[in-house]
């Protein structure tokens, strides 16, 4: 792990040292192009496809939250569906009962998610591995029943949410407006997550994940950071839930079963748990693979879905991004000397042992 961060730091330095168009600049250009592409994409697709992609992005935000907790802090959760539901219901109740505009429901949902996560993170401090899995599982199981029990959540029937309309005067329809809205939230979420993870907080989280005792000995406030990881993680997931309520226009207890929580975990593992890009891959997996499975076999689509999980894990046990990254690092190391000979020999030495860096490197 230490090697990983060291390699990362030295690489960053080296990147900054390049002459001409720097690799950093190229990367920003690439990211910019991707964002522009993502913003233009819905105008070439059908309404339903736009809706599907919106769902992908919502799942990506939720999985990103889970990645922070599981991937970067080493705490497993089978209960993130519950926090997703908390966010969804916060948004729905605010819109349905108090007439709050949809965009204004995100901060309260984030707050509720954060508070619930902190509350939940405190007892979770005492648990590890399968015990934490059970406690969070209990939460996931309890969610639909609890939602049905109260009347202000709409009980069994759930709540309908006021239909969101694009701002007057913009030549854009509802589906595409929501797509762009969710895209903006996703980009903000990624930026915030990257900042947190690349900074002091992220380092503390990873130190705790890799060696809790050593981290504590170095003066990291283990309990505080673990609770914080829970809070931040559930904040992201609750925001995703609020987005889902806004986009779908409806919340009901049966949408937030244990299966949703498990889907998040699967999406996280398939994408790569300790990565940010993996969250997007995970979103695609959760949204599309069940549909593909349905196309392949009407009789037993979930068997195909399960098989897809198995195959993904066999082929890429560290997830798609987690497994591609060492390859990309190797490629970059091969390409660099051609661009700037000699200048970065120190870096390519480091980069030629990509296994070490695969866990710790961000972005």
């Amino acid at each position, binding site marked *: 792990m230490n090697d990983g961060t060291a390699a990362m730091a030295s690489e960053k330095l080296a990147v900054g040292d390049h002459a001409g168009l720097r690799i950093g600049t190229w990367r920003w250009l690439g990211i910019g192009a991707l964002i522009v592409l993502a913003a233009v994409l819905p105008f070439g697709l059908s309404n339903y496809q736009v809706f599907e992609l919106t769902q992908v992005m919502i799942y990506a935000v939720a999985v990103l939250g889970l990645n922070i907790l599981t991937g970067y802090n080493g705490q497993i959760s089978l209960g993130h569906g519950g926090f997703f539901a908390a966010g969804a219901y916060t948004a729905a109740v605010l819109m349905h009962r108090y007439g709050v505009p949809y965009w204004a429901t995100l901060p309260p949902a984030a707050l509720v998610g954060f508070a619930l996560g902190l509350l939940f993170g405190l007892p979770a401090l005492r648990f590890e591995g*399968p*015990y934490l899995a059970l406690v969070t599982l209990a939460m996931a199981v309890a969610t639909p029943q609890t939602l049905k029990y109260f009347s202000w959540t709409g009980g069994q029937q759930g709540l309908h949410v006021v239909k969101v309309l694009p701002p007057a005067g913009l030549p854009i329809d509802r589906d595409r407006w929501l797509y762009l809205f969710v895209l903006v939230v996703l980009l903000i979420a990624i930026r915030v997550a990257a900042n947190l993870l690349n900074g002091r907080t992220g380092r503390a989280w990873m130190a705790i994940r890799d060696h809790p005792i*050593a981290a504590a000995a170095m003066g990291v406030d283990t309990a505080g950071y673990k609770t914080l990881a829970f809070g931040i993680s559930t904040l992201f997931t609750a925001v995703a839930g609020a987005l889902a309520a806004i986009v779908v226009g409806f919340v009901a207890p049966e949408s937030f079963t244990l299966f949703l929580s498990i889907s998040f975990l699967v999406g996280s593992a398939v994408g790569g748990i300790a990565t940010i890009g993996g969250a997007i891959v995970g979103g695609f997996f959760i949204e599309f693979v069940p549909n593909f499975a349905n196309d392949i076999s009407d009789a037993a689509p979930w068997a195909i879905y399960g098989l897809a999980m198995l195959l993904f894990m066999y082929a890429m046990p560290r997830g798609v991004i987690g497994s591609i990254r060492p390859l990309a690092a190797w490629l970059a190391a091969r390409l660099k000397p051609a661009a700037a000979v000699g200048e970065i020999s120190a870096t390519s030495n480091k980069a030629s042992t990509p296994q070490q860096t695969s866990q710790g490197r961000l972005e």
Partner: protein
Amino acid sequence: MHLFLQQVFSGLASGAIYASLALALVMIYRATDLVNFAQGEMAMFSTYIAWMLVNANVPFWAAFALTLAVSFIGGMVIERVVIRPVENAPVLAAVVVTIGLLLIFNALAGWLFTYTLQEFPSPFPDRPLFGALMTTRDLGVIAVTLIMLALLFAFFRFTATGLAMRAAAQNPASARLCGIRVGRMLAIGWGLAAAIGATAGIMVAPILFLDPEMMSGVLLYAFTGALLGGITSPVGAVIGGLIVGVTENLVGTYLIASQLKLTVALILIVIVLVFRPNGLFGTAIVRRV
């Protein structure tokens, strides 16, 4: 008081079933540090095999024995074919593989046997016993579980294979140096777990009726029981399973409508775990720096 005792005994019967499945989970966890989410669905699939045999007019206990044998072999095959490739992968990858396995078995069962509820014969007559405190069926279920436990205990305590399996679970590297074939022991462990699960499935099927979703609730209770007892302790798993069964029944009778009893039971157990984070009988995790 009568109602209370009645509920305790019927809780013990369902608890015995949870205990069996919990034991299967613990066996696999001890050997491979992996919670097998597919354990319940494997048991459900085994139960369908028994159901087919019984429908083909095989006598009940012969069908039972045959099913256990098939499940044992099936469990070994699954370990070799499905689990082995992720043996050294990150834990989460292995967890996802067992979740995938869960979906596959569930969908396969639905596809092969349809999702309609099937009646499953009980080997025990349903007659009241001891002044209606319990039924012969409850007693039968508890007896079968106890016999299975005794056999397992004898296997691990008195046979060379049992000793080798314990060694392989405790310290794979040293066991391998002693000439124990650790891989084979893991496969046997999975086979045994599958057979134990099959017993649980066959015992629970007459009560819950047989369908592909039959074991999902049972697995949750078993998982809870295993952790309550301490996931590293087989005895704990059995006691934990029994406690969960009784708690569930009492909560359903006295506290709250049965719709919420799963939730309440889980919350109670989580509260217990807050005070005993390694379960009632589990060993604390000790780390070297």
